[in-house]
């Protein structure tokens, strides 16, 4: 049995291609967790500092100082794991770099120039510069860091979206050439994927903030701070979760148009037909081209995808077997993502209902669930990325270059060595990150500082009543 047919029987079958795939998947999955948190926290910190400047309320400064500690940890982890990726596309995926380089190279260069330098250039001021610059300059620095994260997501998702739905190119002498940079950058799937990912980071962070708030409430460590965080997190999540579901749906429709086989894999749909059921559960069988133990809602997939229950949805068998993605992986990762999304929606709306009803303190059972819901966004991000990247297989650039033709010529034992090193090092660092983060959380927010400058606006004006309610509660 060879690895090429997707079956691994012994360690000897782990050839260089598979090892490189595992290594890249591992290093990029690990990496993406951190920008997911960093992007959300960067924007949250802008929000907190902006409100502090506007209202002079020291509780915003307190929250800023608390979250910037965790932000710095997360940002640092994101940077170091990101540097690895920038060279890994050369070391392990050199043929991809050579062939797609004319497209991807400039896009990544723009990412470095407009985003990485911007973040790095102002991060020092933001974290260390309070005593050296005035409040406006400091706020500007915080804004620049958040802007840098948005620019970063823009360019890297443009490049990644090009790999999904290439446009504006032609092939010449075996490499990609550019016909139109506008079409390359704003390729068909890019706007959807950019919005979907950015929203995902903000949603994930909202849930994490709410979860931390829940911990403070449950432990009795700081009820006021805990309630403030829980409210902010839940309110944001209550808006972002349904928005994300809408964006995801639109993204799915776009994918149906440009990557129908990926949709077929996501739905476990083998044979082109109409009245396609929405499968809630199934066990896809790649070789038999069918599913076992299907449980589905009749006609619903056709309805969602084509807005008509008679709608025809293409099946996986439209393409030869070697052009089909690994269906079981894509099918289940998609469901995990959607499941997490729905769970976040539920938790957020129930939470906001509690808040509006004025039932404070909140039910301990709910708070415990909320605390456990902290990771939901991150699980969804990972599952979503597995869906979109595995769903594109066997292509690394859809329709143009197959993954197996993109790998560098490196001996398997060397890739095995580096993969093992990454696993060990990253595991160690994740433990350290988790340990330092939980220590920061347990340490709690710093003491409230007295008002440093005159507020420019009355503290509680313009905010919904139930946000102001905590003043009377405590």
């Amino acid at each position, binding site marked *: 049995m060879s690895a090429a047919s997707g079956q691994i029987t012994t360690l000897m079958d782990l050839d260089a291609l598979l090892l490189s795939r595992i290594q890249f998947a591992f290093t990029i999955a690990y990496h993406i967790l951190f920008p997911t948190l960093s992007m959300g926290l960067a924007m949250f910190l802008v929000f907190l500092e902006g409100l502090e400047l506007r209202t002079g309320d020291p509780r915003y400064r307190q929250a800023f100082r608390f979250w910037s500690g965790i932000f710095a940890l997360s940002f640092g982890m994101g940077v170091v794991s990101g*540097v690895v990726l920038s060279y890994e596309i050369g070391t392990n995926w050199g043929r991809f770099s050579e062939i797609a380089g004319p497209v991807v*190279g400039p896009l990544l*260069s*723009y990412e470095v120039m407009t985003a990485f330098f911007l973040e790095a250039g102002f991060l*020092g*001021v933001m974290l260390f510069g309070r*005593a050296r610059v005035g409040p406006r300059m400091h706020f500007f620095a915080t804004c620049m860091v958040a802007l840098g994260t948005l620019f970063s997501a823009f360019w890297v998702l443009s490049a990644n979206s090009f790999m999904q739905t290439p446009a504006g190119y032609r092939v010449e002498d075996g490499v990609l050439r550019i016909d139109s940079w506008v079409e390359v950058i704003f390729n068909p799937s890019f706007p959807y994927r950019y919005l979907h990912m950015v929203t995902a980071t903000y949603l994930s962070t909202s849930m994490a903030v709410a979860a931390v708030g829940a911990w403070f409430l449950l432990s009795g460590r700081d009820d006021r701070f805990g309630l403030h965080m829980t409210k902010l997190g839940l309110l944001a999540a209550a808006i972002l979760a349904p928005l994300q579901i809408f964006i995801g749906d639109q993204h799915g429709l776009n994918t149906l148009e440009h990557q129908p086989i990926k949709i077929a894999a996501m739905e476990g749909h083998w044979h082109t037909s109409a009245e396609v059921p929405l499968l809630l559960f199934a066990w896809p069988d790649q070789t038999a081209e069918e599913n076992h133990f299907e449980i589905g809602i009749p006609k619903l997939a056709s309805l969602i995808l084509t807005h008509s229950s008679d709608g025809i949805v293409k099946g996986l068998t439209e393409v030869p077997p070697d052009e089909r993605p690994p269906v079981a992986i894509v099918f289940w990762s998609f469901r995990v993502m959607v499941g997490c999304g729905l769970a976040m929606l539920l938790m957020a709306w129930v939470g906001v209902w509690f808040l509006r009803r004025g039932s404070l303190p909140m039910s301990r059972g709910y708070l415990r669930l909320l605390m456990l819901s902290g990771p939901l966004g991150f699980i969804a991000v990972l599952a979503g990325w597995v869906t979109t990247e595995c769903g594109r297989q066997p292509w690394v650039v859809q329709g143009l270059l197959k993954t197996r033709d993109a790998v560098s010529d490196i001996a398997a034992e060397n890739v095995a060595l580096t993969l093992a090193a990454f696993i060990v090092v990253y595991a160690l660092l994740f433990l350290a990150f988790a340990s330092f983060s939980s220590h920061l959380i347990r340490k709690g927010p710093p003491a409230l500082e007295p008002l440093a400058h005159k507020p420019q606006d009355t503290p509680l004006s313009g905010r919904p009543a139930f946000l102001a309610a905590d003043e009377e509660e405590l």
Partner: protein
Amino acid sequence: MDMLPLIWMLFLVAAIGFYVLLDGFSLGVGILFPFAEPKHRATMMGSVSPVWDGNQTWLIGGGSALLTGFPKAFHLLCAALYLPLMFMLIALVFRGVAFEFYGKAKDKRLWTAAFIGGSTLVAFCQGLILGSYVLGFEYDGRRLVFGAWDFISPFSLLTGVGVVLAYALLGACWLILKTEGELRDWSIERARRLLPLVVLMVGLVSVWTPLAVPAISERWFAMPNLILLSPIPIWTLVMAFVLYRVLKTPPKQDGLPFITCIGLYLLTLIGLGISLWPHIVPRAFTLWDVAAPPESLLFAMVGVLLIVPVVLVYTAHSYYVFRGKVRAEDLYH
């Protein structure tokens, strides 16, 4: 359109130059860490904490510039130098997280080791890569003929050690600028001791390179190049002597050793460029052989011309914000 690859090459070289000089001193501080008294270490790290990320970003800039301008070279070099690049990347991970974890840890030993080991290994790997790069490669039609462990050779071990010492010297000069009292005196002493070692390294490498690579020997020693290029080694020696004098008497201007050291390194980089010109994959491909298509170079170049000056401005601003000696607030946040 032959100008495009050349102009892009200049950007690439500039990016590498910025990286070597900026991250050079950042890594240098880490390399000096074990030789400093524990009470000084937080200050040493604090001298670099607010700026290290921007410095390191030039490494990503250089890599993406290589990919953008010369994709085939990026592919072939990254694959051939797989192991040293990977070791360097993992070392960078340790060095990077050490900035965050060192400050927060109660028991600092692990993260001190990570900072020292990471910084030193990064420098050493870069030296190994440099040495292998200078020696050059053969191309067999599919890949560079270079064994996975061939990056370890007598010459590359020399350049490896050389880069470690060179970064340490630059780091010491940076500390002279940024610190006061006992730590500054210590830094001056370290710089004094490192300078002859670095000069020795530069000398050895300068002699060995033409011996190892005949084409480079021809470049430097054939007439009229021998006359035309002689200012480079002459000025390098002059710079080294100036740095020696600057360090000998306690420098009044704190920034003088750092500036002089940068001048010295710029000269060695120029010398390196002269040796390797016009190859991007030494001995196998010139920069024109593997240049990216013009529409890619042009698009990227517009960005560079518009954006990099802005980057330089706010980078300079960030250094300006943290000008002067290290303060207590720079150490922790």
